[in-house]
């Protein structure tokens, strides 16, 4: 019996699996706490119903796709703050172009933004924190100038509606898109030399460079993937809400970073599993949803949100002291 407990105890888990196990447990805690509340208040337990969970996954798929891209960039110890307006630009381009070219046009926008980000970070070696911040301001400026500062009047195309909002066998297509992105990313991170290069750069860029890793190229590609995924999320979000609007990406960048970090990815790069990011996204989405079911005012939500991030990181995200 004791052996059994030992076998499954947290200390036996590897350094990268422990955060995932703890975060997954916390998701259950959230669901149970919410269910106790609803049972007490309404006498029903909707939180464990498939309808509710699938709906949450659909909402989570937008954040999940953004977080997937963000994770790649964090793994090479950079960060991408241009996500909010890359997402909005993708959505606005898609609705403005319309027709069958909507999706490709949006992805090209992501490609261009990512290339600029990557060039600035890899070749000019400007800290990504400030360079992507500038690119974000430029994208915002371009979009504001183009739309006149108002929400664009154009509507999402049929295809965008189809991949974001419609369902097959009761499952929204957005979840399939998230699943496809996830599978591709896991294969890329674990089975390709590009994926291993990402971890190598995050651990020690100089060592990766000396081992023959094309660090500049890998950095640029990571930024491109992040921006393309952000614009894809923008297209999906526009399809889901039938239109694009100003500031639609603002609510995604910090939760995406939080999701990546809660999932056990080191904010300094080089360490972390993709599954953790998925678990982190689900945790954040469910936490928000359960708190709103509990009719928690915005003030309480913000406080709990912050405290959850800190306490999760206190359990497994602690760094090492500099001693030499």
């Amino acid at each position: 019996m004791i052996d059994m407990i030992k076998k499954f105890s947290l200390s036996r888990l590897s350094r990268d699996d422990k955060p995932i196990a703890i975060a997954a447990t916390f998701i259950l805690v959230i669901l149970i706490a919410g269910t106790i509340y609803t049972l007490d208040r309404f006498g029903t337990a909707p939180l464990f119903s498939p309808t509710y969970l699938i709906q949450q996954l659909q909402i989570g798929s937008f954040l999940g796709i953004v977080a997937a891209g963000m994770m790649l960039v964090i793994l090479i110890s950079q960060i991408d703050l241009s996500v909010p307006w890359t997402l909005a630009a993708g959505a606005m381009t898609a609705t403005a172009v319309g027709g069958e070219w909507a999706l490709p046009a949006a992805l090209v926008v992501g490609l261009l933004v990512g290339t600029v980000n990557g060039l600035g970070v890899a070749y000019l070696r400007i800290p990504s924190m400030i360079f992507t911040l500038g690119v974000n301001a430029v994208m915002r400026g371009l979009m504001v100038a183009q739309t006149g500062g108002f929400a664009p009047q154009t509507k999402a195309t049929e295809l965008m509606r189809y991949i974001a909002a419609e369902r097959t066998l009761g499952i929204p297509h957005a979840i399939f898109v998230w699943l496809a992105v996830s599978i591709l990313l896991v294969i890329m991170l674990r089975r390709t030399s590009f994926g291993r290069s990402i971890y190598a750069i995050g651990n020690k860029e100089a060592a990766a460079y000396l081992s023959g890793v094309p660090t500049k190229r890998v950095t640029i590609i990571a930024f491109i993937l992040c921006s393309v995924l952000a614009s894809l999320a923008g297209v999906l979000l526009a399809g889901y809400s039938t239109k694009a609007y100003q500031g639609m990406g603002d609510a995604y960048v910090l939760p995406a970073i939080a999701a990546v970090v809660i999932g056990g990815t080191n904010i300094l790069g080089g360490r972390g599993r993709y599954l953790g990011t998925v678990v982190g996204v689900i945790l954040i989405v469910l936490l928000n949803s359960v708190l709103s079911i509990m009719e928690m005012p915005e003030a309480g939500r913000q406080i709990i949100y912050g405290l959850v991030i800190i306490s999760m990181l206190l359990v497994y995200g602690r760094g090492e002291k500099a001693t030499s």
Partner: protein
Amino acid sequence: MSATKHSDLGLRIRQNMGFSIAVLLFVIVYFLYHLAHPKGFSSQVLVQNSNEVFSLAMLAMAQTVPVLLGGLDLSVGAVMTLVDCLASHLLEGTGASVGFGIIACLFAGALAGFVNGCVVVFGRIQPIIATLATGAVYMGLALFLRPIPGGKINEDINWAMTNALGDFAETVGIFDDGKAAWFQPVAGVPTALVLLIIVALVTWVPFRRSVTGRTVYAIGSAEGAAFMSGLNIAGGKLAAFTLAGLFAGIGGIFMAIQTSSGNADIPMAGAYTLSSIASVVIGGTSLLGGTGGAIGSIFGTLILKVISFNFRVFDIAPLLQPLFEGLVLLAAVSLGALSILRVKNQLELFR
């Protein structure tokens, strides 16, 4: 004698290239602004500009200290908002209660910064992610204090702090209500500008010269080496974050005084935080830590703000303003980075 002094100055300028360029750029652009402004070079314009700059300048100073450590404080905007909401409750009365309120607000700002420091030092969580989380908590507290914008500030304080020194003297009742003859040359100087200079001289300059201040710089350039040199790492980090909270708090108090209300606006807090990072970088402080200073960040803020001032006088479509701000930021950091093209050994680029 004068020759050595001259070369000394030249050396200092070369050592603080980012800062020197920021000052020069600001002087040129601001001069052009006053030339083009119909009421240029008047106290009225100066007062208006100072009031618009003050809060962001304080946030830029706040951001500088953690950045010197090699960290980042994503909660400065939230701390400012929290203190803004607190001040809208405490600065309503008159006399002593207002004085007490200001002290309480300063303490609240410093405490918020100290908590950040504790999470970073004792929790050993990376500053950027720790302050992302504490920022959410502070924003929640601010929303708790002011679920909807409102509140009131003592009108005398509002009038005294957001106008020229002459109005300040008149409200407070010193120097013959500001009519004293010797006082006239400085009566047109904006109170906010004087306050900014006083805060910088009273807090930042002594801090930078203290052992704690030097420790902050040392941690930013090489934490391991600082530890081996026997410096108090934990104390330096705690002091840095506490000072950041104090600066953000001063910014929050002024914002409450200026707007005469408290407003827990989450997007606004986020925008202020991001602008503070931009100000720090334009002011010549390295995001890698160890070099730069808060005075440079003040000039970084001035440059950012002067650009938007110029939009008003030069009749450029306001819709293009965000685009220009972004391009200026990108151009500033890219120009600063061009020196790496001279680096011959690739390995020197990795740090």
